[in-house]
């Protein structure tokens, strides 16, 4: 079995990579270039609002290098979790960038587009059949929660990619995908071991984070054989060590031995990490264990309102000592002032210098700092109400007459004018469940399009 070479340019499309690293990768004659473009890490807003957390200019820069190089070599490019969250608008956003590049560079190619946004009626039907289960520690999905959730995506496994590869397209751009799937698909299509292919994919999805020194914006190549894989960073300043690669297995995972994914789990209990050369690591023993039923993870975000915030600082030691009294007093005043209007709102005060970073998890509750940073935050069903609550809380806090006050001109230092900032729509994760699919590819329809040139002269 010939060694299959998979090039991963960067951790997330748009995070960039040194051109030298990418070119070094192309000199190794990869069989495929794959890149993950998304994550739930930046929070629910991006999925809900249909906006990418990556920058358009930065994504275009990366693809401008990747696409022509791959087309010239005749190898496929596979992009997963397009536009960060992998919903329909995110996918369209990425397709638009690809079309723009094709036009500017005079490229023409066939491309598969795989949708990952899941129809709510489909989920509702599965829900009534008892085929939607919560992922711990989430609750059972209710019909109402489903109805109020704006956008739901499913994490596709390798199966839709296998179908797209059969169409002999040059580029595959997919919505939300299980991170390792884009890297493993071409290998699985060629008959390589699924466990090793997916484990290699796990490492290549954040390529140089598994190297030392680590980086989120550098390239790595993976070599897959019959019963092993090897990883090698493409920047000479980095090395893969048995420890750096093994440590990466811990990253963002609950249990590093058992990694559940679409259609089964990756079992790393027998995995060995062996230092091959000074810069490369060989891995063997990783296994894929298929599950009885094929399940797909769903992610959904629900819009809960609009946010306004005000940022301020406090330097007065008497005010700092009495900060709890001030905040509870301001809360009371806000509540009392609008009591007749029955306003529904969320009001929060983040106190940096006390527990602004850790909130309820903070074990040190004594204030040691000579100054505090305050964020006053209001969330309400509409922007106007959020503005009203934030504004009133801010002006009340500014002039609040706390116990022992000597500085009677004002309690807060505002770094900005205007002091209040509209932060727009607010979302919350509302769906994080698994759904049983009858066919691993049924949720993810594929469309084949021709990008660039004129369709009349299809070659």
């Amino acid at each position, binding site marked *: 079995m010939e060694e299959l070479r998979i090039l991963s340019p960067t951790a997330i499309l748009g995070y960039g990579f040194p051109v030298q690293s990418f070119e070094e990768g192309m000199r190794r004659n990869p069989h495929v270039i794959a890149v993950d473009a998304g994550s739930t890490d930046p929070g629910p807003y991006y999925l809900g609002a249909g906006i990418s957390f990556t920058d358009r200019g930065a994504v275009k820069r990366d693809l401008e290098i990747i696409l022509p190089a791959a087309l010239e070599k005749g190898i496929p490019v596979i992009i997963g979790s397009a536009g960060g969250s992998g919903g329909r608008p995110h996918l369209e956003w990425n397709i638009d960038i690809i079309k723009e590049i094709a036009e500017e560079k005079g490229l023409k190619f066939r491309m598969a587009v795989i949708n990952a946004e899941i129809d709510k009626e489909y989920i509702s039907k599965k829900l009534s059949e008892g085929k939607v289960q919560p*992922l711990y520690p989430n609750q059972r999905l209710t019909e109402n929660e489903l109805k109020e959730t704006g956008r739901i995506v499913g994490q596709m496994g390798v199966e839709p990619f296998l179908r797209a590869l059969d169409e002999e397209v040059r580029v595959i751009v997919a919505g939300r995908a299980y991170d390792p799937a884009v890297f493993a698909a071409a290998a699985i299509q060629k008959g390589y071991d699924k466990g090793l292919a997916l484990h290699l994919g796990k490492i290549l999805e954040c390529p140089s984070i598994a190297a030392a020194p680590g980086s989120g914006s550098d390239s790595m190549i993976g070599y897959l054989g019959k019963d092993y894989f090897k990883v090698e960073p493409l920047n000479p300043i980095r090395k893969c060590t048995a420890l750096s690669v093994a440590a990466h297995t*811990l*990253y963002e995972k609950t249990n590093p031995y058992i990694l559940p994914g679409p259609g089964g789990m990756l079992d790393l209990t027998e995995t060995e990490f062996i230092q091959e050369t000074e810069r490369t690591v060989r891995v063997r023993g990783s296994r894929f264990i298929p599950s009885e039923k094929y399940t797909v993870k769903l992610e959904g975000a629900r819009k809960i309102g609009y946010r306004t915030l005000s940022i301020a600082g406090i330097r007065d030691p008497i005010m700092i000592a009495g900060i709890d009294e001030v905040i509870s007093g301001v809360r009371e005043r806000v509540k009392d002032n609008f009591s007749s209007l029955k306003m529904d709102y969320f009001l929060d005060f983040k106190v940096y210098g006390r527990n602004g*970073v850790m909130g309820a998890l903070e074990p040190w509750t004594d204030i040691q700092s000579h100054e505090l940073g305050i964020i006053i935050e209001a969330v309400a069903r509409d922007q106007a109400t959020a503005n009203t609550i934030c504004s009133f809380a801010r002006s009340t806090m500014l002039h609040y007459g706390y116990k022992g006050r000597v500085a009677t001109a004002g309690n807060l230092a505002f770094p900005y004018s205007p002091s209040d900032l509209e932060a727009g729509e607010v979302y919350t994760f509302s769906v994080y469940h698994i759904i049983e699919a009858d066919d691993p590819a049924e949720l993810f329809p594929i469309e084949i399009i021709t990008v660039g040139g004129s369709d009349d002269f299809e070659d």
Partner: protein
Amino acid sequence: MILKIRLIDTAEVIRSKNSGPYELTFDIIFKDWDTFKLFCDKKLIRKELIARLYNIPEEKVISVIEFKPAKAIKATIVRPIASGGLGETDVYGAQQHAPLLSLEFDI
């Protein structure tokens, strides 16, 4: 003889991060095998310790796992709120490791 060991002196990496939007996971990667083995043998990192450190009930500590290939011990807890929910302070969960830095053990 009682020896005081500070976690920060024995670990190469101490970090926190989301493991999905509903969990927070802590990684401690040790500098050498002897210390890793000592921590495992004596079960120095336990669910009860993590619960006390973060002032949460023990049932909110999902697991404490020893991962030999990386000389690491990993603990995972339920996030107080889902990532980015109302009241969030750390969307990525990357700055929740600090209390681990001041841990000390009597050996």
